[in-house]
């Protein structure tokens, strides 16, 4: 068989490979060793989003990936450009998001010489990538790019990094793009073991107190529909983790909300009293389980996950099923009979009624409760994509927004990266221009990447940043209040930044709201403007996220922290 080949440089081959992988958008920042690649990008049919800091490129690519399910792509130059990507790569690795990250590198002849802007980025990112490559010969570039997209997007997804020495980008090759990958050490399991599935189905049929605990795997395997069908068929209530939020409709009667540290009381009670816990694409994170020994200690556990290494990593499980969540849920749907959960569902309904999520609602003319803002955004724009930074506002968003479909909640789960939300919201808005995209932010988090206001204005990406401005690094302050006698060490940031003027300085729309009655109009004005907008919501400064499981406690030892005036 003859291969169709064409002569071209490594840089040109890079572009050709991206075309073949269907890449339409790339987030990046140029630099010396990337000049040949940027020269090709100049008239390539790929939208390049020039960010103002490389960290925003990698978070932007992740936001794009999470909003679409496609693989996100970003690029940065060697040395500091590459090291500025590290946080975002670690973030994508922790949350299993498909990404291909390109970095420039000094010419091969200088590698290892401590050359100008040299950093060993493959070495640095080895523990935070699914795989990485240093390209040593441009002839290997097409195969490597093909492999990288394959590895990133299959099995348990994750980031793959490709380091491109400058000489590789100018080397001339006979371009040939392989149509298959050949990786003998990589063969993810998609189809779950039928015997295990039938055993699981039998357990479900006998269960009296079943609970489904679904995580980010449900989103990445596009298994939301199957999850809903299974829950309805077997009559089991569903709790979704932070990264699983949106995988099950919040307003569904079987929904329990989020489990764990800032979950609902009734989700935690249900898990603790369950006799069968069905974990789907979730990894028993410490923020979910609390004290491990006491977690669901009376339950038999079915664990569905595509990554065999997650099975019995934290919690010993009774029936592991390794494979794709969607495929396995389809089979379970076929074999499982309804559980014996009538009384259980009555108990849960009672818990829901007696222990709802709640806060003291503000009166007309009062100051702003942060939870109220989330409720208002949810009402004003039910199908918005909600992206968050990390902290109290993130928890309120997860607790109070009424998500109704997958890929509408984009948040840094595992790594907890402040500064993630704004750049990720740029990626999400570019991927889904039809949707209103909010970045729910704190005044602390937003300042970690506020320079991207330049990007959204220049590229005309009308995201709405809703700053919950309480003048504190609120989540840390909350812990200081509870566990360090209100000694607010280094958490007060009442540094009088005028976020409205900041937005205006960049050419974005700035709105300020200080009273409850100004919340809804501010949201509506921002949506109607169609412009990149910053809303500075001045909120009550010592509001706590409630309820809360103290670190190290069992999850049913969950406390109300409501602040009464």
């Amino acid at each position, binding site marked *: 068989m003859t291969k169709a080949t064409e002569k071209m440089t490594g840089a040109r081959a890079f572009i050709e490979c991206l075309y073949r992988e269907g890449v339409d958008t790339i987030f990046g920042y140029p630099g010396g060793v990337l000049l040949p690649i940027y020269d090709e990008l100049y008239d390539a049919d790929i939208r390049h989003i020039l960010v103002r800091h490389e960290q925003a490129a990698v978070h932007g690519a992740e936001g794009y990936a999470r909003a679409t399910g496609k693989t996100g792509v970003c690029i940065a130059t060697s040395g500091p450009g590459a090291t500025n990507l590290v946080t975002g790569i670690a973030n994508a690795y922790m949350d299993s998001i498909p990404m291909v990250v390109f970095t420039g590198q000094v010419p091969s002849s200088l590698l290892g010489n401590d050359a100008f802007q040299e950093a060993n980025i493959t070495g640095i990112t080895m523990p935070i990538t699914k*795989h990485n490559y240093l390209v040593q010969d441009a002839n290997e570039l097409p195969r490597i790019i093909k492999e990288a997209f394959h590895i990133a997007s299959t099995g348990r997804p994750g980031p793959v990094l490709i380091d491109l020495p400058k000489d590789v980008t100018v080397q001339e090759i006979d371009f040939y793009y392989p149509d298959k990958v050949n990786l003998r050490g990589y063969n993810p399991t998609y189809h779950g073991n039928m015997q295990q599935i039938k055993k699981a189905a039998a357990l479900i049929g006998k269960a009296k107190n079943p609970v489904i605990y679904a995580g980010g795997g449900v989103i990445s395997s596009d298994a939301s529909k199957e999850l809903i069908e299974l829950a309805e068929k077997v009559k089991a209530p569903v709790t979704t983790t932070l990264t699983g939020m949106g995988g099950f409709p919040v307003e569904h009667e079987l929904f329990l909300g989020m489990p764990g540290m800032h979950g609902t009381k009734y989700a935690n009670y249900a898990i603790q009293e369950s006799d069968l816990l069905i974990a789907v694409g979730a990894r028993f994170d410490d923020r979910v389980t609390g004290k491990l020994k006491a977690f669901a200690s009376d339950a038999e556990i079915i664990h569905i996950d595509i990554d065999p290494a997650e099975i019995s990593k934290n919690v010993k499980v009774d029936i592991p099923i390794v494979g794709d969540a969607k495929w396995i849920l389809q089979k379970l749907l076929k074999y499982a009979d309804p559980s014996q959960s009538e009384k259980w569902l009555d108990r849960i309904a009672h818990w829901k009624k007696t222990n709802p999520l709640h806060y003291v609602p503000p009166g007309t003319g009062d100051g702003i409760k942060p939870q109220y803002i989330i409720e208002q955004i949810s009402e004003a724009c039910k199908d918005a994509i909600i992206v968050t930074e990390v902290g109290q506002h993130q928890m309120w968003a997860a607790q109070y927004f009424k998500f109704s479909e997958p890929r509408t909640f984009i948040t840094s789960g595992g790594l907890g990266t402040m500064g993630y939300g704004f750049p990720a919201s740029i990626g999400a808005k570019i991927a889904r221009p039809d949707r209103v995209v909010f970045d729910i932010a704190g005044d602390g988090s937003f300042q970690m990447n506020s320079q991207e206001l330049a990007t959204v204005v220049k590229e005309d990406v009308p995201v709405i940043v809703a700053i919950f401005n309480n003048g504190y690094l609120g989540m840390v302050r909350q812990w200081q209040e509870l566990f360090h006698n209100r000694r607010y060490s280094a958490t007060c940031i009442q540094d009088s930044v005028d976020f409205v003027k900041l937005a205006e300085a960049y050419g974005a729309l700035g709105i300020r709201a200080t009273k409850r009655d100004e919340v809804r109009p501010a949201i509506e004005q921002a949506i109607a403007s169609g412009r990149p907008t910053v809303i500075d919501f001045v909120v009550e400064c010592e509001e706590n996220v409630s309820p809360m499981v103290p670190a190290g406690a069992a999850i049913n030892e969950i406390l109300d922290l409501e602040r009464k005036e």
Partner: protein
Amino acid sequence: MRHTLAVLVENKYGVLTRVAGMFSRRGYNIDSLTVGVTDDPTMSRMTIVVRGDDEVLEQVTKQLNKLIDVIRVTDLKSEDSVERELALIKVNSDVTNRSEIMQIADIFRARIIDVASKSMVIEVTGDEGKINAIEQLLRPFGIKEMVRTGKVALKRGQKSS
């Protein structure tokens, strides 16, 4: 409890770093690690001796399998595998004790591969216990330097019944 793992990997740069990095990051203890090419030049074989209970072994195996460059991981149980280690031991010796040391070497089927006026170098191959034993016996003479390769192991052939 100690386990011996045979790990077939791609013969590519950086593979050793990936494997060693995974062990250190996840907090697993390596007793020894050897690596060398196989009959297939595209593959290398590592023999890793790791300490831990069955749960640790299960996690180590799964985490190794997650590495793209790892092709296959086999747990070599001592009853159905052969294991060898090689050691070079430089021991103090002079005319007064040379023959005594040579006798010890002889008993262990070790070889003398260097003789100088004040020392000898002994090469010994065997399982770990044998190497520990000869080391014990040579210690009274004064061991100047010693190097051990770490364990290599292969599964035994199928026993016909």
